[in-house]
């Protein structure tokens, strides 16, 4: 049976969409700075990328504060229990209309695979992007002197490609709820439709 529960609080939803917009915009301007295409012009792309970058850093600061004050950070503690089942589900079970191996609740929002993914996102990709981004900024503005910005640029691009692929899978995964749009709607309204095992 499908049940509606209040899953995402107001700040959480705001944080998610603001982050989504900023990252989309950072990718758009970032790959222009990278030289992949021309939309805003190099100069504007650089300026917009910087503004968006600093906005994202501020947002991340708020998000860290929120995670610690609400205890939500515990959601990301990695669990290996049922990790295999979760992987098997996406590879096999999902095609057989099996139900999700792990129940989604407001207290345990993430399945073991998501825990690992988002933990990696939070402690690896985001720190790498923020650090290399800041170094890049200070090299361009003065403050940090480097012989070459080459490896900073390469690392930053590597992270960008990582985020790009992540986003594709992330968006696709939203369709794996009870209905195709259940999870996307949930991120807007806060109310998620989840499967509850019939007793």
């Amino acid at each position, binding site marked *: 049976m499908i049940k509606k529960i209040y899953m995402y609080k107001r700040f959480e939803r705001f944080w998610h969409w603001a982050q989504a917009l900023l990252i989309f915009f950072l990718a758009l301007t970032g790959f222009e700075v990278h*030289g992949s295409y*021309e939309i805003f012009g190099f*100069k504007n792309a650089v300026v917009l990328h910087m503004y968006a970058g600093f906005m994202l850093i501020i947002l991340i600061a708020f998000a860290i504060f929120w995670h610690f004050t609400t205890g939500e950070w515990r959601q990301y503690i990695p669990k290996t229990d049922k990790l295999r089942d979760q992987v098997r589900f*996406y590879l096999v079970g999902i095609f057989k209309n099996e139900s999700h191996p792990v129940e989604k609740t407001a207290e345990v929002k993430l399945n073991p695979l998501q825990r690992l993914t988002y933990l990696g996102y939070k402690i690896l990709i985001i720190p790498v992007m923020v650090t290399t981004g800041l170094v890049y900024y200070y090299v361009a*503005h*003065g403050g940090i002197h480097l012989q*070459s910005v080459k490896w900073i*640029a*390469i690392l930053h691009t590597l992270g960008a490609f990582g985020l790009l*692929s992540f986003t594709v899978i992330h968006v696709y995964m939203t369709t794996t709820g009870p209905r195709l749009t259940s999870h996307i709607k949930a991120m807007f309204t806060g109310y998620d439709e989840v499967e509850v095992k019939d007793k």
Partner: protein
Amino acid sequence: MKKNFFLTMALVGMTFCASTTALAGTADHSKFPELNKKFNKPEDVTRECLKCHNLAGKDIMKTSHWLWSRKTDKMPGRQGQMIEAGKKNIINNFCIALTSNEPRCTSCHIGYGWKDRNFDFTDESKIDCLVCHEQTGTYKKFPAGAGYPAPVRTLFPGNNQWYDPPDYTLVARNVGRPKRSNCGVCHFYGGGGDAVKHGALDSALGKPVKDVDVHMGTDGGNMVCVDCHVADRHDIKGQLYSVSSDNLDRLSCERCHTAKPHTQKLFVDSFEAKKEMGYDIFKNKLYERKKPDETFINRILDKHIDRISCQACHINLYSTQKTTKIWWDWSKAGELNAEGKPVKKKDKDGNIIYDGQKGEFRLAKNAIPEYRWFNGEVGHLLEGDKIDPSNVPVIINEASGACGAKDSKVWPFKIMRGIQPYDTETNMLIIPKLFGKKGSGAYWSDWDWQKASEAGMKAAGLPFSGKIGWIETEMNWPLTHLVLEKKKALSCNDCHSRESRLKNLEACWIPGRDRNLPLDILGMLAFFGAMAGVSVHGLVRYRKSGKQEE
């Protein structure tokens, strides 16, 4: 409309003020009885000048304007070795070398009578004060007179023009601070004609608009040459690396514009600083210019100064007004017509592209500079230096510098390329005698490279085996004039793009130009792989779910 009128009036006013200031001084030379007499030769004028300006002669004699060389122990490739190097003994790929061609080349010397190696550089009366200081525009040196004006009315066959002896009394009584035309009479016409050599220094700077040169533009800064090229006891600052070698007496934009020109006020306020700069900041009220905003971009532009010369962005194109030579192939010279005169061929715009006297030319106008690292030091080939014929093109004056190396910046260059003779036995670039009378061996009279090479090398005191080869050479001409205001300067994309102007520059990393190709390929594979993966996954889900519903 009204605004425009006031603007025009203000400009007219400024121009007027500027010109009257230039004329004002503490002495009116036309009132000196010493100058109000008949002079028979130019040396008599000089003697009269030196009677009052009794230290000027000594000062002049130390300058490169007089010596056409500088002492240096910092020339790349010869560090620690004290040498004299300059126009008098370096080699170029225009008319190749001074030695044995003196009377023609030294028609632009600030002296009288440098017709061969025996010129007396200690004779003060041989200084030509007039060429730099006369204000009438009537004083002309004869093009093949070793620095002398024509003694009697003479025809110069090179340009088919008549040259009259100057009215020395008139010019001596009308002297003052050098005008653009004083400098230009030589510097605009280097290489034997307007704009031939420099690419960014030609008669267009005689009276440009600011869209040609923002400093000299009569509607812009309206500066004359010596506003920037200030002199300390006749030693004029600024040098050109086609003849100079070390980082000495160099002028820089930073002197006036500070090292952070995009965020600091353009001109230093203090009167002392103004005096030091030598430039009248009260002219055109430049001191009233506002401090630029500290925006992201302006700060980034300031940071560029670590690696990028001001000129690299603020000079967009070179030879924007006149046509300059970029290729000179001496090996093609020698085609004469039935009368024995050199054949001349012109392109559709009337520019000479072949001259039997000189060879084949390629010309450029509105040309995009080439960009190289440069730290202010240039190693030259001097007369008698050996070249490596297997390493073509031979670089005649190699600019030092590399990305990240001390003081190295990206500079815009006009690169002059050409083919010139060398001795295949001794591997020396040949110094040909080009100019001279029939029978002297001069190529332009006897049309024989053997004789010309023999005569030239003999005059230089160098051996010549008799075997002539032709070799491609390259010469670096850093560009520093034709500076444009920010609106007309390069934009970011000009360098920060795959089709960058710096495409061929070996650089540490230029965002937008550079990428790590394997990373890009892997990244795109990951992206499209993810797309394909989720598509297949979704498709299978869709088909399975359809089946189960059935």
